[in-house]
């Protein structure tokens, strides 16, 4: 589906194609952003099967919404917004009642001071990942969006339906908690 020219050019029309006008098709946008959107889906869903589903659903929704999109729109931010909304509404449907503001602190006990474990880099990464997964959802999403995908606070605020200050505070709080839990063990 395209926003302007529908048919692909025939071979003999190609010479008349104007190279200065770039009309993005959905496929163009997909090619540009699918890698990072897929990574985002994987970071949110935490397993391959759910990530694939989230990714598919996101793109189907984007594909359908694309014709209504302003051609000047920030396509990247738009895709992240759809992915985030899809993730959150899936969670709601599956009965995960936690809302963004609800505090669902990680219930993992603080680890014993085991130097051998602390030095095992992979185990540590797994622990950090699990800790992030246990953060309040708003902080977790804000952290992922800011640190892994470099979204602006304006875009994060749109995705999380909060103010920019709240978005920034969420990211900072997540980092603070990470430092408090892991800062001395790294």
């Amino acid at each position, binding site marked *: 589906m395209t926003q302007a020219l529908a048919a*692909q050019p*025939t071979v*003999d029309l190609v010479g008349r194609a104007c190279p200065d006008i770039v009309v993005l098709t959905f496929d163009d946008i997909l090619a540009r952003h699918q890698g990072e959107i897929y990574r985002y889906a994987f970071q949110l869903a935490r397993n391959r099967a759910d990530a694939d589903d989230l990714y598919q659903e996101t793109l*189907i929704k984007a594909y359908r919404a694309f014709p209504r999109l302003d051609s000047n729109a920030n396509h990247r931010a738009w895709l992240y917004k759809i992915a985030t909304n899809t993730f959150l509404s899936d969670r709601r449907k599956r009965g995960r009642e936690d809302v963004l503001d609800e505090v669902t602190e990680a219930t993992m006990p603080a680890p014993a001071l085991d130097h051998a474990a602390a030095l095992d880099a992979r185990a540590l990464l797994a622990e950090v990942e699990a800790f992030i997964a246990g953060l309040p959802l708003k902080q977790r999403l804000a952290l992922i969006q800011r640190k892994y995908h470099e979204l602006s606070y304006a875009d994060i605020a749109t995705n999380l339906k909060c103010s920019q200050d709240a978005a*920034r505070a969420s990211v900072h709080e997540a980092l*603070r908690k990470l430092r408090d839990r*892991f800062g001395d063990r790294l």
Partner: protein
Amino acid sequence: MELAMTMTDGPTGLTQTVDPEPQPPAGGREACRLAAEASQPGVDPCDVACEAMPGHCCGDLTTADEVWLRKHTAVCSYCANMLHSYEKVDSVLERLQDALTPVGAPPAWKPERERRRAGYARLDSPIGPLLVAATEQGVCEIGFAFREAEDAFRQRLVERGFAPVHDESVVQRVGPQLQEYFSGKRDRFDLPLDLSGVSPFTRSVLTATAEVPFGHLTTYREIAERTGRPSATRAVGNALGRNPIPVIVPCHRVVRSDGSLGGYTGGLWIKERLLSIEGRAPR
């Protein structure tokens, strides 16, 4: 350890703030927020510094604030250690990101009912048996059957977002023009093409290549220039290597600047054969 010292001058209560940092220009954009906060009465600059550290990790601080933070941590070992631990969190997050990168390309995403139907059939030719696929929009894929199995050809169509279906009518639709070309009776194709599912850069490379007339040669460099990326010759080579519609989109007419043939995904002999059909003797 406090940097900004407030000295009360006797009973008159006059205060003088000694700020070791040079004063920012009045009304200047780079006014240092952290310095201003730290110089408030009763405020511990270490609190200000530690509060600012998550922002430092996110690139939120202005240059002036970064400078203030660095100066503070240069003289305050508590805060220096704190900053160091934040920076270690940062690098763990980076390693975690690498570890959380899924292996392999994103899956094909279109649900079956939204995929464009691509009929395909096998066609014989002087360069060996071909697999030719076409959608309603046009020819979308040509494969060399001696090089890849039908399953692999179908998989490529699926990856581009098509729904492949065996369809002998493609032979009547595309076959005659191909046969005419191979027997030297046709020098331009009058067939619509479907280049969907191809990256924008690859599409621009293919579009530029499609403009090269029968019997002419061009170089990777020239194609690169035409796509507006004159130094991207290797990327052009890669894109042509992924040409989904060889023969019709004439990547065989693209050679190296030094006169050598370059590559050809189907096998260099095919490139030579096609060029010889077009009256260009192999180099």
